[in-house]
């Protein structure tokens, strides 16, 4: 304790001393007084050292001996001075401390003495206070004793007073209720009655109370009657109505009945809405009115809100004209859906959320009420949906898809409110189904519109082909701006096939693009139903890709194929140029357009192929097949036209009695002309193709010499019936080494192949016709001339000129064989005649 006091005193004393020094001094003092700092000093090993001058076990003898033994004199001297110095400083420190402590002690003694005096005074005052308090207590006890009686009386009186007030309330109740009834303050009346009801019930055995109760009952019945009346009238607002219901519920009306009434009342109002809607559908508009409306709509495609549209619609002259679908849906949403929501809200408020609070309400009221509500909503919604669907079905024109999409969007969006109100309801799902149906229907309409557009375009192309110079109608259709419903007529007149082809394919492509853009609206981000799984997945892959794009491509291929079949056997109904054009179109589709369109679709609609979709290759194969078929048919038709000319020319002539040939027959020139023009036509759309190398003098090949030599061999041979086959040996050997020619065979997609096909057909016909006739000398010579002429001009069109040579050889050979007097013309004469023209 001393040490502590020491320290604390020493601090103020040594004032300005630096803390380290003070600490050291303090520490040394502690040592001196045997204070071990937190017991550590004892454990210190060095402290056991008897030579440690500061340690507790210091032994001066040992220390001295040690010093004397270890140190030199000089060191001893130093040690001594140092020690003396230390001793001195320690002494002075001790003196300072003693002095300071003494002063403190003196002042503390003074303070204690002073405190002793003050306490004495206080004790006296406290005694006085306690005496006073005792007096007061005594008084108070005496007063309360006197007042006890009066107090109980007052309590009793106040109890009687309240009872009387209650009784008064009860007696006044009938009058009050009547008054409330008069003032139509039903809520107050019900509140009052509720307050009295239990009491009256409890004391109903007393005649007076019984009377009051009866009166009240009568009045309340009347009131309930009136409320019911009001409820039934239905003229009141929804708020009034709900108040009514609330009151009736409080009057213990059966909730179920009320639900029914409420709903039936709501139903009547909603049905009037529905009838209003139905009235808008019922007048089926005349076509002209529809057209007017659509024209107007098309003129203001940006009409955004229904308010924008409504003046327009009212401006339409015909009273029967239909409101457009957006307006219709708007009306449906605003009138029907919103009142339906209102009904649902108030109903839920009344019967479902509030009911359990009523103490008399049975537990299952919410369930019952919910069930009724669901049935009610389902029923009405079903009717609404059927109306909406009817209206959507009327939406046949594909002019402006955005209107329909917006209408559907609004329709769908407003139904979300019902979802929120009635979480378990099937209504929104049904609404989505309607949207899906409408979308599918729309896709179907687009497909048919595309198809009719395609057919219309073909008709135009046909017209353009039929009147090549004067053509006004062209298939050139303005790009995105043009709507379906028929291609517009362009002023320019593209007469050449490539232009027609490019304008046709561009028009179709544009149309597809614009349709895709229109359909794309269904999946736009801001449309509420676009994030439904159907619109994300199936609509894109099945609806758009398969049912629209793929179907259209298939339709194109199929209709092309139909040209080959229905155009029939006569081949006259379809102009050959159209066949050629379509064939090229299909081929272009195969090479590029199909994959382009599908890529475009996939990109636009981010089609995720959950279901297997028609691969591009299948479509390409189909297109190629169609192209092939068309081209084959083209060859057949053109071949037939030339064949007919040749056949007629052979069949109608008397070849036995003909004059010596002086000219090439006109029909041959015609054949060459036609072939040339076909060549030009095909060349416009198809590449040249490969042909075998020509011999240098193809046109001059003297095939007649060869065949006539053959003829001579044939006829020079003596008739030897015993040796069959040798007369035809040469011809047969020739045939053995030449390849069999398929006349109506498939052609390749190039000009040379097409021309080869046509010429093959023509010459084979020529051959067969020649074989059916009998020739005189000049008949044969005429054939020789004709064949030479054909030889001169036809070789250039075909892939393998030997083919022409072979067939012409056969013709001349056959006619020589069918000749009564086979005397072939001199080759030089033939050449002269042919060169003369």
């Amino acid at each position, binding site marked *: 304790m001393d040490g502590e006091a020491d320290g604390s005193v020493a601090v103020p004393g040594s004032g300005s001393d630096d803390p380290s020094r003070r600490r050291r001094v303090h520490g040394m003092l502690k040592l001196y007084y045997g204070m071990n700092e937190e017991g550590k000093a004892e454990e210190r090993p060095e402290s056991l050292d008897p030579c440690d001058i500061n340690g507790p076990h210091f032994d001066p003898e040992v220390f001295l001996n040690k010093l004397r033994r270890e140190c030199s004199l000089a060191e001893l001297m130093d040690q001594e001075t140092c020690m003396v110095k230390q001793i001195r400083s320690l002494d002075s420190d001790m003196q300072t401390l003693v002095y300071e402590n003494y002063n403190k002690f003196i002042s503390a003694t003074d303070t204690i003495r002073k405190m002793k005096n003050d306490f004495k005074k206080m004790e006296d005052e406290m005694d006085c206070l306690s005496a006073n308090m005792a007096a007061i207590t005594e008084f108070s006890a005496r007063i309360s004793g006197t007042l006890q009686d009066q107090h109980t009386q007052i309590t009793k009186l106040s109890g009687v007073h309240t009872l009387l007030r209650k009784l008064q309330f009860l007696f006044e109740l009938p009058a009050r209720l009547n008054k409330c009834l008069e003032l139509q303050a039903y809520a107050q009346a019900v509140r009052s009655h509720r307050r009295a009801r239990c009491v009256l019930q409890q004391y109903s055995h007393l005649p007076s109370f019984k009377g009051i109760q009866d009166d009240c009952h009568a009045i309340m019945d009347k009131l309930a009657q009136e409320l019911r009346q009001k409820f039934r009238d239905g003229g009141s607002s929804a708020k009034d109505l709900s108040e009514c219901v609330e009151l009736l519920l409080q009057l213990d009306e059966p909730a179920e009945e009320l639900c029914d009434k409420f709903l039936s009342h709501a139903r009547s109002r909603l049905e009037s809405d529905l009838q209003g809607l139905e009235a808008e559908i019922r007048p089926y508009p005349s076509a002209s009115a529809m057209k007017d409306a659509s024209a107007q709509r098309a003129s203001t495609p940006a009409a955004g809100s229904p308010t924008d549209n409504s003046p327009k619609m009212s401006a339409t002259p015909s009273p029967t004209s239909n409101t457009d679908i957006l307006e219709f849906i708007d009306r449906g949403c605003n009138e029907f859906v919103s009142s339906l929501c209102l009904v649902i809200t108030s109903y839920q408020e009344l019967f479902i959320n509030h009911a359990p609070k009523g103490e008399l309400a049975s537990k299952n009221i919410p369930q019952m009420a919910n069930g009724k509500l669901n049935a009610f909503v389902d029923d009405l919604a079903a009717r609404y949906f059927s109306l909406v669907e009817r209206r959507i079905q009327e939406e046949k024109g594909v002019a402006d898809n955005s209107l329909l999409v917006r209408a559907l969007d609004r329709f769908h969006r407003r139904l979300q409110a019902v979802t929120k109100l009635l979480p378990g309801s099937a209504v929104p799902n049904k609404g989505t189904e309607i949207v899906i149906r409408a979308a599918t229907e729309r896709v179907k309409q687009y497909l048919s519109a595309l198809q009719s557009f395609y057919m219309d375009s073909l008709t135009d192309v046909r017209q353009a082909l039929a009147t090549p110079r004067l053509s006004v109608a062209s298939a050139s259709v303005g790009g995105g701006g043009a709507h379906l419903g028929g291609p517009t007529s362009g002023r320019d007149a593209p007469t050449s096939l490539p232009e027609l082809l490019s304008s046709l394919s561009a028009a179709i492509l544009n149309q597809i693009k614009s349709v895709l853009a229109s359909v794309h609206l269904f999946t736009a981000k801001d449309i509420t139903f676009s994030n439904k799984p159907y619109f994300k997945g199936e609509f894109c892959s099945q609806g758009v890709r398969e049912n629209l794009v793929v179907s259209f491509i298939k339709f194109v291929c199929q209709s092309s194929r139909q040209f080959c079949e229905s155009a*029939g056997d*006569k081949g006259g109904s379809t102009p050959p140029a159209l066949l050629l054009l379509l064939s090229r179109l299909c081929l272009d589709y195969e090479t590029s357009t199909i994959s382009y369109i599908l890529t475009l679709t996939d990109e636009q609609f981010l089609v995720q192929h959950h279901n297997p979709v028609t691969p591009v290759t299948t479509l390409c194969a189909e297109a190629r097949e169609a192209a092939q078929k068309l081209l084959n048919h083209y060859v057949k038709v053109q071949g037939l036209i030339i064949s007919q000319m040749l056949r007629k020319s052979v069949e109608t002539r008397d070849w036995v009695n003909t004059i010596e040939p002086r000219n090439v027959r006109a029909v041959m020139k015609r054949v060459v002309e036609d072939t040339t023009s076909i060549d030009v036509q095909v060349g416009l759309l198809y590449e040249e193709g490969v042909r075998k190398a020509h011999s240098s003098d193809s046109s001059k090949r003297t095939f007649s010499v060869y065949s006539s030599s053959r003829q001579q061999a044939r006829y020079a041979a003596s008739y030897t*019936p015993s*040796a069959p086959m040798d*007369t*035809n040996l040469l011809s047969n050997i020739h*045939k053995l080494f030449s390849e069999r020619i*398929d006349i109506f065979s498939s052609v390749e997609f190039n000009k040379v192949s097409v021309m080869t096909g046509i010429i093959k057909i023509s010459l084979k016909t020529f051959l067969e016709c020649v074989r059916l006739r009998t020739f005189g000398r000049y008949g044969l010579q005429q054939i020789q001339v004709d064949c030479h002429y054909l030889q001169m001009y036809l070789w250039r069109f075909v892939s393998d000129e030997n083919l022409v040579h072979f067939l012409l050889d056969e013709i001349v050979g056959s006619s020589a064989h069918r000749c009564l007097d086979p005397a072939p013309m001199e080759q030089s004469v033939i050449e002269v005649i042919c060169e003369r023209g």
Partner: protein
Amino acid sequence: MEDDAPVIYGLEFQARALTAQTAETDAIRFLVGTQSLKFDNQIHIIDFDDENNIINKNVLLHQAGEIWHIGASPADKAVLTTCYNKTSDSRVVSCAAVWRMPSDWETGSHESPDDSAHNPQTLELLCHLDDSAHSNAACVLWEPMGDGKRVISLADNHALLWDLQESSTQATVSSTATLEGKGQLKFTSGKWSPHHNCSQLATANDTAIRGWDLRTMSQIYCIENAHGQLVRDLDFNPNRQYYLASCGDDCKVKFWDVRNVQEPVKTLEEHSHWVWSVRYNHSHDQLVLTASSDSRLILSNMVSISSEPFGHLVDDEELSEGEDNHQEEKGKEPLKDSVVSTYEEHEDSVYTAEWSSADPWLFASLSYDGRLVINRVPRALKYRILL
């Protein structure tokens, strides 16, 4: 089962006319008429020895002219008709006549074929089927399965029904039918129906097929535009009375039910050029033979429109005899219409093809270069039809 190789026979002349010897039901025998403007035309009698695969031929001279059509009497083996072109005064006239083969042609040929070849016998003319009013016969049709007393000749736009009397030496026109219409109408081909008591005739002119009732000589049906182009040939299904096959220049073979002439029952498009001849097999009408100027002969198996669409009907007795057989029958999948085989032995246009009257599995075809090819129905198919 290896099929026998086709047997080829070459004529020295070009030829279009071929027929089976209808009245001969034992030997396989075909008649071929040649076309030559220079030399005497011939009728080759081709006997086929089925067992040894050998052809025996006999030649008869037909000096009247080149033969365009030939028909064998169904009653008398030795009687036949030809349509031929006669050239006189630089005019070509088409005629028709009934001929009788010399009675000893057969014996002569067997003993010394070389002799007969060098000194061919001549056909004996029975009568001409022409009168002054009607010429240009396109073909002559014997009454099917008749007694060889009635023939029809198609000449220009007339169909003439002849009665042959006095052992066919006299022919009188009993009735005629005339095709009326715009332009120069001309019958190209015809067929006498074996059904309805042989009272019906079908003819082809241009693209139309017409049916005629021979009792009244009036038209009973008409298939306009039966083919896109010329109709070349017709044949009646021997077992289904309303079924008719036709072929033409549109490379198609069409099968018709004459009760409904709007649409063909079936169409084949196997040939790559005009089809000149179509023939039903006499016994198994699902087998149809077509010949075309693409030098091919095609045998088709038209099960679906045949009289045995479900294959050979098994009798109850047979059923009771062997259950296994029945099981096997059931296991067979029904045959589908298909091309059985394409025969490419010809080098030139094949204008006619005929089934043998003796062996229902054998047929001959004749190409313009004078090559006659005898082929058989593939064995596999034959057994499939029979078993």
